[in-house]
């Protein structure tokens, strides 16, 4: 073996040894920085067959702009009603930039609300609601949307909007009021939960026939609502309380 080869093997061995020696330090620093896994992002990249320019930009750190460009490309596929491209681009945008709820929420809405209708022509759209096959299609896409939102919730565990969106899908697409109620209540308990989440929770309780609980919830809720904030809709909540009191004879 000539000296160059011996030198090369020596360098290789020393580099591996250094890698081994610094592994603990590397892991510890990564934990201190709270860095997350990128494996999912790479899988999504492979599925979506991103152009080399975009891959380079992503590698370079232009994460938000790449995610936005992917979303714009998704919009073109959405207009063509192209299932596979729309879905893969939604998953790609959420995996590239999972830090913001926009991609999770709107992606789930497209999957749950738009995609089932793509299975039928405009004239046959009613079949989604009137046939067993249509209901199965709705259910299938609702599951897909919920799966996406589950991932979003694991990435953004403090985000009430994602849980609320899951609740909406459980309610409107799967008719599962019990599960929807649980999700709305969980979202309502989070900091920065929008006021409408509480109102929807009360509505879901009422629709389940749990009027007493709905009334108790609204009475408790209205105490903390700010009078001067339009979004809090205090008069609407008070009117609902009055309506429930009348209905329950209280």
């Amino acid at each position: 073996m000539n000296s160059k080869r011996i030198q090369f093997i020596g360098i290789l061995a020393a580099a591996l040894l250094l890698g081994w020696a610094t592994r603990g330090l590397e892991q510890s620093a990564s934990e201190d920085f709270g860095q997350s896994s990128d494996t999912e992002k790479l899988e999504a990249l492979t599925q979506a067959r991103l152009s080399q320019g975009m891959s380079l930009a992503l590698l370079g750190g232009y994460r938000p702009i790449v995610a936005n460009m992917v979303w714009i490309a998704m919009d073109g596929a959405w207009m063509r009603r192209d299932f596979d491209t729309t879905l893969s681009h939604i998953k790609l945008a959420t995996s590239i930039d999972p830090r913001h709820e926009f991609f999770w929420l709107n992606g789930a809405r497209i999957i749950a609300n738009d995609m089932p209708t793509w299975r039928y022509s405009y004239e046959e759209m009613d079949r989604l609601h009137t046939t067993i096959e249509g209901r199965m299609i709705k259910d299938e896409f609702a599951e897909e949307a919920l799966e996406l939102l589950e991932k979003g919730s694991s990435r953004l565990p403090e985000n009430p909007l994602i849980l609320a969106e899951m609740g909406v899908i459980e309610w409107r697409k799967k008719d599962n009021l019990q599960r929807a109620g649980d999700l709305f209540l969980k979202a309502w308990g989070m900091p920065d939960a929008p006021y409408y989440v509480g109102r929807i929770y009360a509505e879901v309780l009422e629709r389940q026939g749990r009027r007493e609980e709905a009334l108790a919830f609204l009475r408790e809720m209205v105490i903390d609502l700010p009078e001067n904030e339009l979004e809090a809709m205090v008069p609407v909540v008070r009117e609902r309380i009055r309506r429930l009191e009348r209905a329950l004879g209280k």
Partner: protein
Amino acid sequence: MTHTPEFETPNLSWSFRRAWLIGQNAFREAIRMKFFAALMVLALAAFASSFVFREFNFGASELKFIADFGFGGLSLFGSILTVILTVQLFLGEIEHRTALTLLAKPVRRSEYTLGKYIGAMIAIACFVASLTLALALALWIRETQLIAESPDLFPEGRVMRYGDILMFGVMHMLRLGVLSALVVLFCTYATSTMFAMLMGFLVWIGGQLQHVATEAWVASGTVVSKLGYAFVSLLLPNFHLFDIGDKIALGEAIALSGYAKAMIYGLLYASFYLTVSFISFSKREL
């Protein structure tokens, strides 16, 4: 028995001053390069374009988007600059044979190698510092405007952590320092600039994805794939470790211990690659 490298000047004591002088010259050479100025302008233009691209932004708030864009520019253009500049400074003189004139004088090859590295790093530091300050300034101005326009959105005052933005610049310098040292190592072997640049870009991409190999190493089932991933994971430095822009853009606090550990990690790798470069270059026939 002591070993004197074949091409070293015997009985010459090692001097950091000589390395520093070579470094100063290398830096002057670097800033005279049109490529350096062009990349600096391009990076600043790309950063300025974030104010246009914010119209296409769906996910993040404006300040986070601008910060992300600035970090992206630093990372992408900084890496390209590091690879090309280091190769040009080191191999340029060897290809043009002007290095022979310098090395014929009482200069150790390790001093020449370190000098070229120092020159490249000063130029890269100027690039990173300019972009980091430009980013911090742009964010400061925009944040001030936004606070004046909608004070309700900033109940607790400023949201950007400017100290951490400057620390991003420091972390990035470390990352580029490791990359530059690795490129110097390739240069001590390479006979053409093209080969050295290609290898530089490959290790940049490989190092950026090293953490994925580490994850796969832990997760993979077969012995062969485990060995393969372990080999890649241990061989390459983890450049992703220095990417702390995500946290900073979200305004999240970063543990000081993380900075300290990443610094030790970066310095260890850069020192290792430079030491190997000294040995390798001292044996190279020019």
